[in-house]
């Protein structure tokens, strides 16, 4: 019990953020028209590309003789960027069409 409480105290900020973000995620999405399901999924897909920041940290901390970390880090940065850039561009392309129609 004490161990669990300690864990909670140590990671309080994290748990705080975790709970708030879960609630927020539910709230933000729960009333969305079916038309927007695909673009929304695609937009959310781009947002989790934020994992790229981890890749950048891995890359930036790799010692210059640690080839494995360098190569893996480099690969991770490329993959993460694909997720972010591809995700946002695809979403924009989908949404562009909704806009065009509004003008008519």
């Amino acid at each position, binding site marked *: 019990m004490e161990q669990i409480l300690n864990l909670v105290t140590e990671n309080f900020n994290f748990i705080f953020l975790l709970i708030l973000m879960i609630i927020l995620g539910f709230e933000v999405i729960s009333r969305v028209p079916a038309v927007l399901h695909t673009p929304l999924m695609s937009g959310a897909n781009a947002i989790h*590309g934020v994992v790229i920041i*981890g890749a950048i940290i891995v890359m930036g901390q790799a010692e210059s003789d640690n080839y494995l970390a360098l190569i893996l880090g480099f690969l991770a940065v490329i993959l993460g960027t694909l997720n972010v850039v591809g995700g946002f561009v695809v979403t924009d392309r989908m949404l562009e069409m909704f806009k065009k129609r509004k003008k008519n």
Partner: protein
Amino acid sequence: MNSGLLSLSYLIGSVSFIIGLKMLSHPDTARKGNLYAAIGMTLAILATIFLYTKDGVGLGNHLWIFGGLIIGSIVGTFAAKKVQMTAMPQMVSLFNGMGGACAAIISIVEFKHLIHTGADITSEPVMTATILLGLVIGTVSFTGSMIAFGKLNGNINDKTLPMQQVVNIGLLILILVMLVGIVTGFISGEPMSMMYILLIISALYGILFVMPIGGADMPVVISLLNSFTGVAAAFGGFLYDNSVMLTGGILVGSAGTVLTVLMCKAMNRSLTNVIVGSFGGNKAGAGPAGVAGNYKEISVTDTAVLMMYSKKVIIVPGYGLAVAQAQHTCHELEKVLDQNGVEVKYAIHPVAGRMPGHMNVLLAEADVSYDKLLDMDEINPEFAHTDVVLVLGANDVVNPAAKTDPASPIYGMPILDVENASHIIVNKRSMKPGYAGIENGLFFQPKTSMLFGDAKDALTKLVAEIKSMA
């Protein structure tokens, strides 16, 4: 100073994700929301490169980092711009897989790093668990997304191993046991090899998890894997104590789960039902009862005549329309009929195409007006006073078995009540069953006529025919 700036950038980034996601859920603000999130992301990335420090040391290897960013940006933009609107769903799946792989690689490097520091991993249980969970979830998301991509792209068919569900559950238990074992030190072994074994099992699980899930359920799977990657990103955020990764990751994990549930609801099925009682998995046991008989064909000319003398026509678009790239021709047909005083509407089933909203996006591309696209609930009562329903490459969403045959795998899914209309014309390339692999009794009803051929070809001829008559 620098760390203050970094925190501020992360705060702005996090807020931009929240606001972006909120704006994405309204048609008017969606595009701006996407842009805001992208700007926030760029800020967070740049701030990390230049301002992040650990123990007073900043990040190096800028050349490598920018090299990776540039390569990724060029390839990503190119792929996203080039892809056909019809191939959007698999593109989303592909990008999702990239994110999962990225999370998995981070975990591999960090696990190696942890071992290298010489620390006994059992003395760092939280850290080890975080790294390994990121590894498992990221890997499952990566291989799962690749299979989903292959399936939507038509490279991979539905396959079910004997005892598939038992194997899957077994693998899942194995993953959990290994996780707990490594973290607690219960499994003694060389940590690196244990990690690689865990990696391989997770990869295998991702493949086998998606493999048996068939066609119509693929959007749900992609949405689910999308939230998995969010969770994997959140584990990365916990690992680096990085607030923007945490916010983005958890937000997508949570929002993705809600979206997944919403999609399941649109099909009137539970998530468990989608995963365990998959369409593809039960195919053998679901022989359609009493679906057979004669169907009748109709010529383009007859179709044109029938439509010209109708008061009201409803078009039901499906994936066949998307494959044939027939959205523009379809809009043309609508215009010609409209000019001749025929009322035309579109009936959009929530899961028509390969993703919810897929048909809306496609028809929007062809400039079809918003108010002509009607949701299932709105349009269903209208079929009864409709003269002609034109089903364009849709199948499962108009299969009456969903209402009448409890043995059918799609039993319980709400469908479009097209059989209430006076005439039903179905355009298909052949009599082959739809994506879920189920025969459709609608095609054999006396009111139904089949107009065989590629949707675009058939529509082009139909438009020409109607124009010549007018």
